[in-house]
């Protein structure tokens, strides 16, 4: 599963570049999206929960990563897109926390908790959002 061939060519904002650098050193799953909601990075600790290495997945549009991970509530009912914490963080520009389940790209459904935070840069510009998440069976 990869849409590397569709990856936009332009350089990402410096705030996202630095967040990725930090995330690559953290022992905490981190999932990073840009201002369009595009998945641009998840770090190594996120890989066991998402079921694949980022290099195998590549960047994904919001539609594609929502379809791939199929977020659902703890009862297994599919979450409306507008209720997914990372989408809330981006579209409503506020932090959002939830327990939910996701389907890993290896086909395994896992329970997680996540806190998602909007990323604002200079001039209040909304540049994307970041989800910190962890296993929460």
């Amino acid at each position, binding site marked *: 599963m990869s849409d590397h061939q569709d*990856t*936009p*060519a*332009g*350089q*990402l*904002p*410096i*705030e996202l*570049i*630095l967040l*990725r*650098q*930090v995330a*690559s*050193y953290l022992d905490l799953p981190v999932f990073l999206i840009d201002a369009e909601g595009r998945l641009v990075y998840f770090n190594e600790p996120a890989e066991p929960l998402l079921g694949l290495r980022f290099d195998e997945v590549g960047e994904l549009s919001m539609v594609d990563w929502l379809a791939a991970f199929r977020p659902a509530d703890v009862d297994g009912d599919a979450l409306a897109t507008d209720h997914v914490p990372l989408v809330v963080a981006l579209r409503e520009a506020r932090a959002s926390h939830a327990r939910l389940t996701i389907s890993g790209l290896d086909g395994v459904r896992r329970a997680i908790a996540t806190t998602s935070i909007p990323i604002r*840069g*200079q*001039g209040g*510009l909304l540049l994307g959002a970041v989800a910190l998440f962890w296993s929460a069976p």
Partner: protein
Amino acid sequence: MKVALWGTRGSLPSAGPDTVRYGGNTACVEVRADDGSLLVLDAGSGIRRLGGALGAVEGRVDILLTHLHMDHIQGLGFFAPLFRGSGEVHVWGPPSIKADVRSRLGRYLSPPLFPVRVRDLGSRLVVHDAPERPTPIGPFVVEAALVVHPGPTIGYRISAGSRSVAYLPDHEPALGARAFPASRRWTSGHDLAAGVDLLIHDAQYTAGEYESRVGWGHSSVDHVLAFAELASVGRLVTFHHDPGHDDDALDALHQTMIARSGVPVEPGREGMSLTL
């Protein structure tokens, strides 16, 4: 377009017999369009001599500041056009999250650090936050973007007609990278520098020095060579020389750099002029 270097030193003015060939003044670059329009990049101590060379006939002067560290603004209060009654000086620079450029600059141009306040200058001084989109200034188009360096710091890409120059005097694109260079998409400053005719870039450290100065906001020579190749620039001029590097040390550093570079490269020297 013509580019002249009035100050190439980083961090601290370093005048003395050991820095005569590369110069001791801190960052200042003059950019001229074919019609004579002027942009000044940074206001380090090199701007004092530039101001003296401009004479009284200059109309509007635009100064583009990359950031407000002292070595980039310490010459501003000695820039002659600021004290002429008829002049108009526009200063552009990065705001911080909570303060605009004018209030940030006022912390330096006021007692006790400086005897004259901004409001007491003879010329008309207009201070702008750096543009968020490509912006025309006379015949130039100026693009600014944040780059990796402590505190709000921007680099510039300046175009006039078919010519372009990128100016990133304080830049540490390798900070935190697992491998450098990474892809263009994940490299600070890439889009500013991509394909320019001339890149003026920080090259403060040797590879060995960088190891003990990670996070200080500057590049090693190896980093800037890799960055210049990644961005496919036409020509590289190294800049922001370490105040601890005398002329002989810079000669040795640059000889190895020139031998390894994949793009035409030359060390920035105070007094150097380039035509694009």
